[in-house]
């Protein structure tokens, strides 16, 4: 058994790290005395206070997010349960989530058309944007010469920052008339096709930017390893690089999807804002089903909120159902973010 270690001499917390005596010994015989390095009390105090400041900021953000969720949930619940603020009758979950009939004036609050609209427009946009974005990412990271890589990266970063209403104006004034003129015998072209196209243009830069990062972060040893076995450059890209980057490419796509789902302005300007689009599609018989689906004026959760929320009275069923829609959007986006997180974790594992 080793002997127990002796106790350390007692020191006070404020004692300087370098005792005065030691400092003096060290300076003996030298013309310039060695300074004793010590943080001032002010700095230590500031350290403690900044800690509190950071904590307060974090709490504020958490409170805000939680507050929004609570607000949406409280108002949305009013649609289904008789709450204090209600001025109107309540509706059942069935009437809201399973009905395609949206006619608030007549007491019908089916939001299926908006959910379907959101899914359709984001799905279509992603169908275009995901492959385009990923392949552009490959091109920028692995194929383009250095000067072009720099230009493309900067262009993509700029495009990410363009406000969505600008895309909306572009769609409204240029794309809609053009499409209507070219394919639809001057019939209005508003609907999923043009909305999805605008949305795709909006999210492609995000997907490109993130997939470029994904490909650039791959070690060049993978590329070399593949080509050293006799693969062509394209085989290396298809068989090694894209599979290796897959988790990050999925994250890029999901983040693009997140941006698409929440987009209201640009879509609202070109989608036609017709809550009864499902009914209209069933009735119309003049075009093929695909064309009818692509060019029937429609609506999504976001566009309907933008369109109708300002016109409804607080506490009315109409108003409450719109809040429920907002809550639904919030939860969908949350789910997407969680999915992104999970994908990111898988990548690191």
């Amino acid at each position, binding site marked *: 058994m080793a002997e127990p270690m002796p106790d350390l001499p007692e020191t006070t917390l404020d004692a300087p790290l370098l005792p005065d005596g030691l400092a003096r010994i060290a300076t003996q015989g030298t013309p310039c005395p060695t300074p004793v390095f010590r943080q001032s009390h002010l700095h230590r105090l500031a350290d403690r206070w900044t800690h509190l400041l950071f904590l307060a900021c974090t709490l504020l953000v958490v409170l805000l997010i939680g507050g929004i969720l609570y607000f949406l949930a409280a108002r949305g619940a009013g649609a289904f349960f008789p709450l204090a603020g209600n001025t109107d009758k309540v509706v059942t979950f069935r009437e809201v989530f399973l009905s395609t009939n949206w006619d608030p004036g007549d007491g019908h609050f089916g939001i299926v058309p908006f959910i379907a609209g959101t899914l359709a427009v984001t799905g279509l946009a992603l169908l275009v944007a995901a492959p385009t974005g990923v392949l552009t990412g490959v091109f920028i990271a692995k194929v383009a010469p250095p000067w072009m890589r720099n230009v493309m990266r900067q262009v993509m970063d700029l495009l990410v920052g363009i406000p969505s209403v600008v895309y909306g104006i572009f769609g409204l004034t240029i794309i809609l008339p053009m499409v209507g003129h070219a394919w639809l015998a001057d019939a209005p072209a508003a609907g999923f096709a043009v909305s999805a196209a605008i949305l795709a243009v909006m999210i492609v830069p995000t997907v490109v930017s993130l997939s470029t990062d994904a490909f650039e972060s791959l*070690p*060049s*040893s*993978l*590329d*070399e*390893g*593949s*080509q*050293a*076995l*006799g*693969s*062509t*450059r394209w*085989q290396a890209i298809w*068989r*090694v690089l894209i*599979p*290796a980057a897959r988790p990050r490419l999925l994250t890029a796509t999901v983040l693009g999807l997140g941006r698409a789902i929440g987009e209201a302005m640009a879509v609202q300007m070109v989608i036609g804002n017709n809550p009864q689009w499902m009914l209209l599609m069933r009735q119309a018989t003049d075009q093929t089903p695909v064309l009818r689906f692509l060019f029937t004026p429609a609506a999504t959760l976001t566009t309907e909120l933008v369109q109708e929320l300002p016109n409804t009275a607080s506490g009315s069923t109409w108003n409450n159902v719109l809040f429920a829609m907002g809550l639904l959007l919030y939860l969908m986006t949350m789910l997407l973010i969680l999915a992104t997180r999970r994908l990111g974790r898988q990548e690191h594992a």
Partner: protein
Amino acid sequence: MLSPQTPETKPVKLSVRNLDFRYGEKKVLDGLSMDIHAERVTAIIGPSGCGKSTFLKCFNRIHEVSSAVQVSGQMAMDGVDIYRGGIDQVDLRRRVGMVFQKPNPFPKSIYENVAFGPRLFGVRDRATLDGLVEDALRKSALWDEVKDRLKESATGMSGGQQQRLCIARALAVNPEVLLMDEPCSALDPIATAKIEDLIGELKENLTIVIVTHNMQQAARVSDYTAFFWLGKLIEMDLTERIFTTPRERMTEDYITGRFG
């Protein structure tokens, strides 16, 4: 190992004449000439930055993947200049395999890593692939360790196993030459010993060129040793002679640790 008493019986596989290599303005290799014999292990030693890795990469032209380089002089495999116009780089790289400094398994299963090469060349039949994978893994002395977990990810293996997997991956396309660029520099001594044993077995029917920082390793595994300094070939001879009676003073100084 080949000794000075036994005459060389193997033909020349690779021959290099007056090879110059430039990255832009910088001359990395300067007037190199050497012959490399089939089924022998040729080690290339020299201090960092002497161009030995660059030289190795000339044999499969892999440096052309990432940068623009200028090569002049001749480099021939079986008498055919591999820098001649009309040479298919993809075919060249199939015949001249490479193992890199750091193990670089693809983030796929062990099986898929080895099957990658054969698949590139259109092998689809499952039984054929299984056979090729097993054969390559046996040759790289990895089969017994991984035969029950072929479907597991290759990135979960130890560094030494990963490097042997990379050797198996290179062997699966049946190359004639195997280039090894400091294959043990990232490995512990036990894993290194395994790779060195492997090199001894593989040279039965492969031409091996190995770049190494480790002079003991060169002495242990190679039949020939070439000493590079500042992009020039100072001396090349039988390994035994290089390490006992080198002709050049500089070689002696380097292998005895007086510089480098």
